[in-house]
């Protein structure tokens, strides 16, 4: 009986491992093929999207001005949505051949990995660690990290947060940015991480956290009568559109779209449209 138990345990363990590896390998096979084709040229990467008939883009739905699902119309709109539409227009000649997949800071990387989306345009900050795993276009927007606090808490700068807890979303670069800034100030802070932005805000309001740190553009959607964004801002975050690491061909293609938009003045118009021109 005992022997059987041990055997079972070992067998089950092996199968568990095998299942995970199979999942990894199975998907690996398809991405290798993609790598082979996209390494040749941007054309084949674009051809693949053309064959799908639609550009699949991971976007935010809870960041006003960037990617926001308008509760009145049910439409997703924002600066990043318009950028994605411009890419779709370049590929298909029709900006509506686009499928928007809502992502969070936590899910956007994995959804790119697993092939659910062709690209991510979702306030995705470019950094070294991410560049190791994904292909990024040139930045299209720069946004510093800010701190949202309750007015009643009497917090006026990052220094006032010494020893306190700061709410940050999982999967964002914010934690690292604030950690570095705090180190510079010579203070220590602790962090509470939540799966979504609304929970960060809830943590601030319930007093679980003394501040909610996030890119300022994201924070603007959460300011209300009781809260304010501190004038302190640090670590400018550069947003780029991201593709799979092996999809550099498509990256170059989208980069060209962005450059063309800059040169033609279309980019400035969009920034103005979304009141993001500083």
């Amino acid at each position: 009986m005992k022997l059987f138990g041990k055997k079972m345990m070992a067998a089950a363990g092996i199968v568990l491992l095998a299942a995970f590896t199979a999942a990894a390998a199975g998907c690996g096979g398809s991405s290798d093929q993609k790598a082979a084709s996209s390494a040749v040229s941007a054309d084949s990467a674009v051809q693949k999207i053309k064959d799908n008939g639609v550009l699949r883009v991971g976007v935010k739905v809870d960041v006003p001005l960037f990617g926001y699902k308008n509760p009145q119309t049910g439409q997703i709109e924002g600066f990043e949505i318009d950028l994605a539409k411009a890419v779709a227009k370049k590929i298909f000649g029709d900006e509506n051949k686009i499928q928007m997949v809502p992502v969070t800071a936590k899910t956007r990387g994995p959804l790119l990995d697993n092939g659910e989306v062709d690209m991510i345009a979702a306030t995705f900050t470019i950094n070294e660690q991410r560049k190791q795993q994904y292909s990024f276009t040139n930045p299209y927007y720069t946004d510093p990290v800010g701190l949202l606090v309750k007015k009643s808490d009497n917090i006026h700068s990052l220094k006032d947060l010494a020893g306190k807890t700061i709410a940050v979303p999982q999967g964002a670069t914010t934690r690292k940015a604030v950690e570095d800034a705090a180190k510079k100030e010579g203070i220590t802070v602790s962090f509470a991480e939540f799966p979504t932005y609304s929970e960060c805000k809830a943590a601030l309001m319930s007093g679980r956290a003394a501040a909610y740190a996030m890119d300022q553009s994201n924070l603007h959607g959460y300011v209300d009568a009781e809260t304010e964004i501190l004038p302190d801002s640090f670590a400018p975050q550069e947003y780029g559109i991201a593709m799979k690491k092996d999809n550099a061909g498509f990256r170059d293609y989208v980069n060209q779209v962005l450059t063309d938009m800059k040169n033609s003045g279309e980019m400035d118009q969009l920034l103005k449209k979304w009141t993001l021109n500083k």
Partner: protein
Amino acid sequence: MISDVFQSYNILFLLEGLKITLEIGVGSIICSVIFGTVLGVSCHLKIPVLGQISTIYIDIIRNLPCLLLVLVVRFLTPLPPVWSGIAAMSIFTAATMAEVVRGGLNAIPKGQYEAAHSQGMNHYQIMRYIVLPQAYRNIIPPMMSEFTTIIKDSSFVWAVGTEELTGKGMILIGKYSETGQLFAIFGTVALIYFILNYSLSLLARWEYRRLRV
């Protein structure tokens, strides 16, 4: 003002979440009942290979947290959000369902098989006319109480940003910050879950009594 929370657009917003909860719930119930029955039956009959695979499957999945499966399925498969939720919940609950089925089948006395066999019935006939009707009685009520668990556990898909009922509730929590408003939101969400699950468990109990008579 608490009444701000009960504006029609907020109610509609929550109902949208309820719709997704129900989609995931119903989808997972159907898939896990089918999948769980296949697993449970092949374990019980000790079907070569399939039986062993089923046992191993049950042993693996039953010992993992639901939240982990939700994350893994969402991150490793290119399924759209609701389908990914259904897949994760079905993978998870099928293991429990399989245990229920296996337990129900094992509770049928061995003598009945032998008797049926001596009557010249084949395997399929024994299953169809002797075993399943009895097993149905042992299996259906506990299976139905698992439905409640599915509805409750589906709230884990909010961790991957799928806006089901819990998610919609949390988004509202992020928007309103007065104490009364928060309690109203929590109360409403909890009440919706309660009504849904309590009706399901009443149904399970009613079925249990009906089958015992």
